């Protein structure tokens, strides 16, 4: 009758009979578990923050840039070594649109730094010539006015769309829509202002967009040896995210053929998908999170040693009790179990309070706007199982010491 419950009750009695000592021991585990949860939640928060930032670029975005791909270690994507010899052309973009399957939109883009002058205000801005597809591909929307249309594109209309920062610099007091300004050598009309995207990867806030056809009238495009018009990038949307790798493979073979590259030559362009970027960053931050967790785990280890220390003292103090229990018929396993449960009890209690503490810290940090934090179930499960595991591990030796005491010696001890 209630035999299974007896050892737990005994462990509980052991814990509450030394309240301060048990509290301090539990505190060591609380701090360790709390630190693991708080620090790992910061890592996880940073990861989700950056990933959602990247996703805002357009989840299915693939960008082709000219230059040789150089891979460093395991980092995919590498670095673009552009230089003056841009090889990517408008004609490549047309060929991609015509020949590569599983893509829903393609836009070439050519950027140039040009002076903008309204008569009152004057600034330099990065002007990018694009087709109307560019905005949907890059997840860019308009805040006021309109984006340019296909007919405006086809007719090389001299209309521009301003990034939010450019709009406020050039037209601090007026509504920019409908205003005319000089851009390089031509006069253009503002038809739209883009929604602010904030500081993120490839934010359009500081840019200006114009139909690529109109841009050709003010900026001379470089020509390749084959006579193509070079562009600074080609961006496209993959119609199904699962097909991203297929699209990248198709793009690679198409461009290699078009650029007449020998089998042994490296690509003279590089292709990067948002998915790749997300994976790369996610794995880098994952490593960082593990590092944070490992640092916090050191304090958990110290807490575990505290449990072992207290259990050794406790066994020593209760030597006579162990002798009495043995005389009453307790087997080694009974004594061993009693002290092991007590150790596990201390560390489990510490684990539970530590989760609450760590969660509270993470929540407070987020609420105060210091950092984004994210407590995921796997962190909690990890912290609890590690703390109980440590209780069992560090309780093992003291419990074993207690179990193998000779009953006569134990009874004689004072």
């Amino acid at each position, binding site marked *: 009758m209630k*035999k299974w419950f*007896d050892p737990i009750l005994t462990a509980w009695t052991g814990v509450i*009979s030394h309240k301060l000592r048990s509290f301090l021991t539990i505190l060591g585990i609380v701090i360790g578990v709390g630190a693991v949860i708080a620090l790992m939640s910061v890592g996880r928060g940073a990861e989700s923050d950056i990933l959602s930032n990247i996703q805002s670029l357009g989840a299915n975005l693939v960008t082709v840039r000219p230059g040789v791909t150089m891979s460093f270690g395991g980092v995919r994507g590498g670095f673009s070594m552009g230089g003056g010899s841009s090889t990517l052309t408008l004609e490549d973009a047309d060929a991609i649109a015509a020949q590569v399957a599983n893509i829903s939109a393609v836009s070439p883009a050519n950027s140039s730094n040009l002076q903008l002058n309204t008569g009152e205000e004057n600034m330099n801005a990065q002007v990018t010539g694009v087709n109307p597809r560019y905005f949907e591909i890059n997840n860019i929307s308009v805040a006021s006015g309109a984006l340019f249309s296909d007919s405006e594109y086809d007719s090389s209309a001299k209309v521009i769309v301003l990034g939010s920062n450019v709009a406020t610099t050039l037209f601090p007091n007026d509504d920019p829509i409908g205003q005319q300004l000089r851009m390089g050598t031509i006069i253009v009309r503002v038809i739209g202002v883009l929604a602010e995207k904030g500081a993120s990867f490839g934010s359009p806030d500081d840019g200006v967009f114009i139909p690529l056809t109109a841009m050709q009238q003010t900026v001379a495009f470089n020509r390749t040896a084959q006579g193509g018009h070079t562009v600074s990038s080609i961006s496209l949307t993959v119609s199904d995210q699962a097909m991203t790798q297929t699209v990248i493979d198709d793009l690679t073979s198409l461009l290699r053929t078009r650029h007449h590259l020998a089998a042994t030559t490296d690509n003279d362009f590089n292709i990067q998908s948002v998915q790749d970027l997300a994976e790369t960053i996610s794995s880098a931050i994952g490593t960082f999170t593990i590092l944070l967790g490992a640092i916090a785990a050191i304090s958990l280890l110290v807490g575990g040693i505290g449990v072992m220390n207290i259990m050794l003292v406790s066994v020593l103090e209760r030597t006579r009790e162990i002798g009495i229990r043995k005389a*009453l*018929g307790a087997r080694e396993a009974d004594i061993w179990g009693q002290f092991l449960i007590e150790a596990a009890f201390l560390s489990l209690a510490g684990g539970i309070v530590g989760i609450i503490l760590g969660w509270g810290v993470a929540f407070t940090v987020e609420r105060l706007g210091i950092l984004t934090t994210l407590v995921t179930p796997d962190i909690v499960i990890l912290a609890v199982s590690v703390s109980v595991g440590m209780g069992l591990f560090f309780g093992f030796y003291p419990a074993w010491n207690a179990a193998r005491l000779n*009953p*006569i010696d134990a009874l004689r001890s004072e």
Partner: protein
Amino acid sequence: MIKLEHITKTYPMGKRELNVLRDVNLEIEKGELLAIMGPSGSGKSTMLNLMGCLDKPTSGTYILDGKEVSRLSGGELAQIRGKKIGFIFQTFNLLPRLSALANVELGMRYVGGSDRKKAVEALEKVGLGERITHRPTELSGGEQQRVAIARALVKSPPLLLADEPTGNLDSKSGGEIISILTALHAEQGITLVMITHDAGIARHCQRIVHFMDGQIISEERL
């Protein structure tokens, strides 16, 4: 009930060996009330520990209740202690943190589990029915020893071993303890082996065995 044959017990002491028991032979009948007397260091406590399966002899055989137990493992000996043997110590050996009732319940803990009703009955039997919630520190020496007797009896063992049960008590409480023990023996036919220095107490027994230098030097039947 108990049959000890050619029992020796030696402890290593530096390079020499200390012979605590030297070729002891002793038989105890079921239901017997036996006193062991002798000066300190004569081996009588070691003898009682061997009988209680707290220790193993260096050589010789020990048959308890028809079973040879001197070569059993620690776990098996623990089972025998739990089921067949009740101990009463000079220093009571109660757990100070537990109430009288919880101490008595502990007597059943390792042999089938606690049974509160039985524990209360055992305490009533030794005259402590009113004080079951008291802790050992709140009880007199005589009362503590009565709790210890209740703890030993609660599982109804066939053999009761008492090591100077009145050694720490004044003569009045000591007398009460002895009358409880002898009454138990008379009513329940329990086998009782008791170490004592007090010849007056030993006279309540049926047989007295005298130890000296690890051997039985004389026996007297009363």
